[in-house]
C-alpha cells in the first residue's frame, strides 16, 4: 500500500516537473547572518534604502536584536527617538510625485516575495544598460526604482563590492521581516526535544497498559 502511494507521488512529482516552470531564475546568494554582516546591512538600509523606502514595523530600539549596542543605535538614528520607526527621509507625497507610486515598505519585503532575501539580492544585481543606453532591470523589466547603487555602470571590481553590500542588506532585511527567527529556532529545539522524550515515555506507558490485555477472543482478530 505504502509503495503504491510513494509511486503515485513520484509520478506526480514528474508531472509537476514537466508542467513548465517559467519563473524567472533567482540568484541564490549565500547569506551571512553574523552580527557584523547584519550591521553593515542595517547601515546600507538606513543610509541608502531609507531615501525612498519605509520600514514601518522596525524601530531603532529593536536593532538591538541584531546585536547593535545602544551607542551604535544612537549614532544611526541621529535626531530620531529610539522608539521611532525607520521611516523614509522623504515625505510620501514627494516620493509619489517622483515615482508615480509610493515605494513599497521594506519591513516585510523578505517575506512578501517568492525567494525572500534572494529575491532582493537578485533584483538589486540585475540592473543593466541595454544597447540603446537605457537603464533597465533583467529581473524586473520596467521597474521604476533607480539603480541607486550604480550596479549597471560599475566595472567588475566595483560590482563585487556592490554585490557584497547588497548581500548584507538582504540579510538585514531578512532579519527585519522575521526578527524572532533566532529565538524561535532556539526554543523550537527545546520544544521538539521535550516532546520526543514525552512521546517516548507515553509510548512506554501505552505498551505497559496494553500488555495487560490477553489474547483476542473474536476469531480472526
Amino acid at each position, binding site marked *: 500500500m505504502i509503495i*503504491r502511494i510513494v509511486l503515485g507521488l513520484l509520478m*506526480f512529482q514528474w*508531472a509537476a516537473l514537466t508542467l513548465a516552470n517559467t519563473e524567472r531564475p533567482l540568484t541564490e546568494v549565500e547569506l551571512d547572518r553574523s552580527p557584523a554582516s547584519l550591521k553593515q546591512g542595517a547601515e546600507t538600509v538606513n543610509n541608502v534604502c531609507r531615501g525612498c523606502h519605509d520600514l514601518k514595523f522596525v524601530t531603532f530600539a529593536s536593532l538591538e536584536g541584531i546585536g547593535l549596542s545602544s551607542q551604535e543605535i544612537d549614532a544611526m538614528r541621529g535626531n530620531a527617538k529610539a522608539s521611532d520607526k525607520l521611516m523614509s527621509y522623504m515625505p510620501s507625497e514627494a516620493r509619489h510625485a517622483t515615482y508615480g507610486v509610493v515605494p513599497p515598505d521594506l519591513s516585510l519585503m523578505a517575506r512578501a516575495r517568492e525567494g525572500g532575501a534572494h529575491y532582493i539580492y537578485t533584483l538589486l544585481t540585475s540592473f543593466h544598460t541595454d544597447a540603446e543606453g537605457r537603464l533597465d532591470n533583467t529581473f524586473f523589466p520596467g521597474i521604476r526604482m533607480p539603480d541607486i547603487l550604480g550596479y549597471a555602470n560599475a566595472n567588475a571590481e566595483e560590482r563585487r563590492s556592490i554585490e557584497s553590500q547588497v548581500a548584507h542588506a538582504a540579510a538585514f532585511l531578512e532579519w527585519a521581516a522575521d526578527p524572532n527567527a533566532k529565538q524561535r529556532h532556539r526554543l523550537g529545539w527545546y520544544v521538539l526535544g521535550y516532546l520526543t522524550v514525552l512521546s517516548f515515555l507515553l509510548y512506554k506507558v501505552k505498551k505497559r*497498559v496494553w500488555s495487560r490485555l490477553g489474547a483476542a477472543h*473474536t476469531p480472526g482478530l
Partner: protein
Amino acid sequence: MGNAIKWVDRRFPLSTFIKHELTDYPTPRNLTSWWNFGFLAGFVLMLQIISGVFLAMHYKPDSMLAFDSVEHIMRSVNYGWLIRYMHSTGASAFFAIIYIHMARSLYYTCFRPPRELMWWSGQVLLLLLMATAFMGYLLPWGQMSYWGAQVITNLFRATPFFGDQIVVWLRGDFSIGDATLNRFFVLHYLFPFIIIGGVFLHLVALHYIKSSNPLGIELDKEDKIPFHPYFTIKDLYGLGLFLIIFCAFVFFKPDMFIEPTNNIPANPMKTPAHIVPEWYFLPFYAILRSIPDLVGGVVAMGASVLIFAALPYLDRSTIPAGAHYRPIYRIMFFVFVLDVVALGYLGAQPPSDETLLYGRLASLLYFSVFVLLPSISIREDRWLRRRGLPKAVEAFIKAEQAEIAEKKAKQRRRGGA
C-alpha cells in the same frame, strides 16, 4: 473528596457519566492508529479556539488597522509570534487531520448503516470548518486574503434570481471592504462554538452506536475494552507524535502555510498576478476552474464537497469494513486519493491549456468514482461472496440481512393490518 463526589452525584450524574463514557465505554481493541485522528481533531479545535481568543485580544478588525495589528502581534506582543503561528499552522493541521479522518471512514466504509448520522454530522462539521477557515483567512488583510475573499464571495453571483444582491449582502458592500472584514471577524469568532455543538452531537451519536472497527464485524464482548485507560493512553501517545510534527512546522517552517503575497497589505486597486486559495481548498478550486461556466463551476464545486453525504446510498455492498475485504473498492479508494492530490496540485497552477485539460480529466475521474460506485459495488459484492468470505464476515452479513428482512416483514404486517 469521596463525600464531595457523593454530594455531586446526588444532583448530577457525574460518576455515572465518567463510567459510561470513559471507564466502561466499550471500544473495539483492534482499532488501528487511523482511529486516533478524531481525538486529534478535537484537540486542534481546542488549540485553535484558545490561540484564537488570545489573538483576538490584540487583533483589530478594521481595514485600516488589521494588517498592522497582525504585525504588532508578531513583533510586540510577548510570544505573539508563537500564538499567531500556532493558529495559522493549526488551520492547516486541522484540515490535514480532518481529511485523514474522512479518508479512514472512506477506506473502512464507516459511513454504512447504522452510522449515517455520524457521517452526515461530520459532513456538516466539514462545511462549518471550511466556512470558518475561509473567513479567518481574510483577517490578516493581506493581498491574498483580500483577493481570495473577493473571488470566493463572487461565486455567489451564481445564485438564481438574486445573485448580485446576495453578493452585496454577504460582503456588506459592493466589494470586499471594512464591513466585510468586521463581519468575517465576528463570524470567525462565532463559528467555532457552533462547531463545538456539532462535535457534541457527533460524539453523542458515536457513543450511542459505538465505534466501528477495521474488521467491520461485531466483536465478541471480551474484545471490547474500556476506553480508559487503553485508548486514553493511545490517544495521548498519538498526540505526542502529532505535536512533534506540528511544532516542527510552527518553529521551523511557519511560513510554509502563508503565501508570500499575503505579506503585502490588501490593495483593492491591484490584483495579484495569480490568486490561489489555501492548500486545503485547492482540489475543490481545481474542480471549479475546470468548468468554463460560472454556474456550472459553482454547482460542480458544491457537489464535490456534498457528494460524500450520498455515500451510504451509493455503496451497495453488503460486506462490512470496506477496503479491508474488498480489493476493487480498495483500488477505487487509492485512485480517488491520488486524484484528489492531483486536483490539489492542478488547483495551485496558473491556468493554462495543459492544466485545464488535466483538471477536467481529474474532475471527471473524481465524480466517476461516486457515480460508478453503486454498480461496481454490487458486482464486486456478488463476485466476492461467490469466492467466499471469512466465516465471521459471512455470519455478520447474514445477521444484518435477517434483521433487515425482519424489519420489512414487520412493516408489511403493520401495513396489512
